[in-house]
């Protein structure tokens, strides 16, 4: 039942790997969560305005002194490899925090169904924010956000199923192969529900998922498919649905067994007697999409957009696409190609999205945290409540979109730095080590800017701090201004 062209493509990609989780072997922590604050006034090591500091900015949620020290120790490539081999990074502190505070996230689909929808949502949002800010596996968390955006699912529409998708699709496969990830997403009950695939059946196909899997997940909007391909693929995918409490299922009874042609690949007519084997038609089309050159280009462009620049160069796109093709969509290999030292050095800064900004504030100001309930609720005020983007394209990653939203960030910074008790406590006194205005500014530079603060900003922060008595209230305001400053918004 497989056309010749597709069979060749299938062979090229090799057999689908079994979905197994890489075992995690915790090792001693190489990256301390809390930066060491020296007692003496630190001197800004300007040499970090280099490819390595660029790298740190792009693969973390905020450049801390601990990151700087780690990169210094392991070097550019060494740091990348350690972050790629993320299961070897001890993340037991974050795991323990998430495990104890957000226990619903490890429950099965039936338990999640029975839980309060609001609680599931809040635990998922808070755990995501906490890990972004405090996980040692920063690159992994950046990839989780990338794929969450790429395979966007609104929790408003699918509820607890998003928590299942986050755990069993996005986090499970974020650093495996694009093939494993796409297959997992295509067999995610949450995705089926989000894009109405569970509403589709023979004789009455629903085109929503069929369109978006080509437009947004694989080929890209100009990737060479037609409206007829959308219609035909929607027929191929009839029967891909959900069962029970939202588990993926293939239902042969509602599958369209007629002949179809998608992207020039013909699937001959089958018969209901083939039963569960009808899913192979859709799987074959996933393989066709995975092997399509437009997919290589589309994923490469998007990954470069994420890590490198809003407008990656054609040669850069070609290089990453070539890695995609050569490795069967190996995500780590594509990241290696994308994180090129020369490219990073030449790349312009990117604007932190609101979630990135708030995660940065937590990561760099390193408050004592017993929960992130209130910080998570602030994400609504700054415009990016997690998993709330309702359309399947995900939150925009464009300067034009977020540029105007500076004031909510300033307002957040005021709020955040004022926290002196409760679940998040900013230890203002720890920024005052040295007990002078200049030492305080140096601590802010070290902790918030990885010792790369812009000299003008440094001078103006010092002037603001010195305009009043050196006390906790003034330091908190100065911290708020540092987090509000233009240069903190970029990475």
């Amino acid at each position, binding site marked *: 039942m497989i056309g010749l062209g597709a069979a060749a493509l299938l062979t090229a990609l090799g057999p689908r790997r079994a979905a197994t989780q890489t075992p995690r072997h915790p090792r001693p922590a190489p990256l301390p969560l809390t930066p060491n604050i020296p007692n003496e006034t630190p001197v800004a090591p300007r040499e970090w305005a280099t490819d390595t500091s660029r790298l740190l900015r792009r693969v973390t949620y905020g450049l801390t002194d601990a990151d700087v020290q780690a990169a210094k120790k392991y070097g550019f490539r060494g740091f990348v490899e350690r972050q790629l081999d993320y299961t070897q990074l001890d993340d037991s502190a974050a795991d323990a925090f998430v495990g104890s505070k957000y226990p619903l996230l490890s429950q099965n689909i039936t338990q999640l169904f029975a839980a309060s929808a609001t609680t599931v949502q809040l635990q998922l949002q808070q755990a995501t924010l906490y890990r972004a800010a405090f996980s040692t596996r920063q690159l992994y968390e950046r990839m989780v956000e990338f794929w969450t955006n790429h395979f966007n699912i609104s929790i408003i529409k699918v509820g607890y199923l998003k928590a299942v998708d986050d755990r069993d699709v996005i986090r499970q496969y974020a650093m495996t192969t694009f093939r494993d990830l796409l297959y997992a997403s295509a067999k995610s009950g949450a995705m089926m529900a989000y894009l*109405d695939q569970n*509403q*589709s*059946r023979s*004789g*009455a*196909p*629903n*085109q*929503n998922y069929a*369109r978006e899997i080509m*437009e947004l997940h694989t080929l890209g*909007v100009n990737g060479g498919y037609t*409206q007829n391909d*959308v219609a035909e693929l929607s027929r191929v995918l009839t029967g891909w649905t959900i069962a029970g409490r939202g588990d993926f299922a293939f239902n042969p009874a509602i599958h369209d067994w007629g002949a179809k042609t998608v992207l020039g690949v013909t699937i001959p007519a089958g018969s209901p007697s083939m039963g569960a084997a009808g899913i192979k038609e859709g799987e074959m089309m996933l393989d066709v999409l995975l092997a399509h050159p437009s997919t290589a280009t589309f994923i490469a462009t998007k990954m470069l957009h994420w890590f490198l620049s809003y407008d990656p160069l054609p040669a850069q796109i070609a290089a990453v696409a070539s890695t995609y093709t050569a490795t069967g969509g190996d995500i780590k290999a594509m990241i290696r190609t994308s994180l090129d030292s020369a490219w990073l050095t030449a790349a312009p800064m990117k*604007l932190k999205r*609101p979630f990135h900004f708030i995660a940065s504030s937590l990561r760099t100001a390193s408050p004592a945290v017993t929960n992130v309930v209130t910080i998570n609720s602030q994400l609504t*005020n*700054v*415009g*990016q409540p997690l998993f709330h983007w*309702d*359309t399947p*394209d995900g939150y*925009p990653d464009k*300067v*034009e*979109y*977020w*540029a*105007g*939203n*500076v*004031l*909510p960030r*300033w*307002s*957040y910074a*005021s*709020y955040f730095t*004022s926290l002196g008790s409760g679940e998040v406590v900013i230890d203002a006194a720890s920024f005052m080590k040295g007990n002078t205005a200049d030492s305080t500014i140096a601590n802010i530079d070290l902790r918030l800017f990885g010792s790369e603060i812009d000299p*003008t*900003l440094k001078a*103006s922060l010092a002037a*603001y701090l010195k*305009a009043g008595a050196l006390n906790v*209230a003034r330091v908190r*305001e100065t911290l*708020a*201004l540092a987090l*509000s*400053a*233009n240069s903190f*918004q970029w990475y």
Partner: protein
Amino acid sequence: MIDERDDDCGCTEYRELSRRQFLGTAAGGSMAAVAAAYFPAWLPKVVLAESYTSTRDVILSVFMRGGADGLSLCVPFGDPSYYTGRPTIAIPRPDAAGALTTKGIALDNFFAFPQAMAGLMPAYVATDLLVVHATGQFNSSRSHFDAQRYMEIGKPNDASLVTGWLGRHLASMPPVRSTAPLRALGLSSGLQKTLVGAPKTLPIANPAGFSIGGSAATAAARMAFLQTDYGGATEPIHSAALDATNTVSLLATIGFSTYRPANGAVYPNTSFGNALKSVAAIIKADVGIEAAQVDIGGWDTHSAEDPIAGSMYRTMQDFSNSLAAFYADVIATAPTTGVTAVAFSEFGRNARENGSNGTDHGRGTALFAIGKNIAGGRVMVNNWPGLAKPNLDSGQDLVVTIDYRDILAEIVQNRLGNANLGVVFPSWTPTMRGVTR
């Protein structure tokens, strides 16, 4: 208050703005670069008006995101194919037997509103609401995102253009009030593409909470600090920060929490209703606002559409009751009658329902224009193309017979007083169809 125009103010700043944005000869390199990126060389040079009409309306632009089903919003009950194509989700004819609560409300002898749109009947009866049908974009994509992008930038299939049609309108007109810190706002956390390129324009999701926070005693000093700090920022961040600092004090003077709508208007307590209420408060505060962009979602009705009692019903009801409140509160009430509202979507839905009692992405749909100077009280069509299969686009969709830019261009020219239609809608020669009075 709205028609209290400042005829000769603003031109100096406007010429400065024009030089920077259109001719790219700004002193600051970054601004020139932004101008070049925003306004490609092929855009026609703006015609600098020495004076302008004193009847420039404020515009409320509503984007119905998701592909709104025009055949439910404005039901062509006179076309029998509407009923054959939609056995489970059609709105019954106004003269059908059965309960009144399910039937259409006749707009003429061919079209009807569903009950969910009843809120807009007063505006229609007062001839202030125009419905345009079988409209949209020619050759549009069925992708939500492409179709929205091209609709918002006002030029199909041009990936190089990043400014929006309303952004270019504002950029090519002097401000109504030269001292206004804010000329336009998007009720959104991020600036909608429609407004990109507009001077003194911000996305403000919640105008009532637009504040820097922290101690009141130091607020001014902190704002001054940030104004200076962002002085070196690249565009568009630089302007956004400057506008934000200026807008904080502006919005602080508007009593959002105590705002009382006129004319007994009641805004639904929904995000769309609250957004329109905020816009109304800002317009009535008479602070020189010229445009607001508001979005309403919920239109992507692939399944269980149910325009009589289900999800489409609720979305349409929110849409119509919110706009009806804005109409009663603002448009129908002096002195703010110089306000025009438009609402439209990136595409319509298939003429026939799908197997999920919903509708998939289509083409032609309905557009709404409301204003005291809109020639309303009718459904405008350019020869109804019909819903019989041979008459459908690709055998499945209502054909687009009126480019949406025709409608907007006439409003931009006649109500917003902007003759630079080539800037607002590049490469498009609009047909004036009698949209305005």
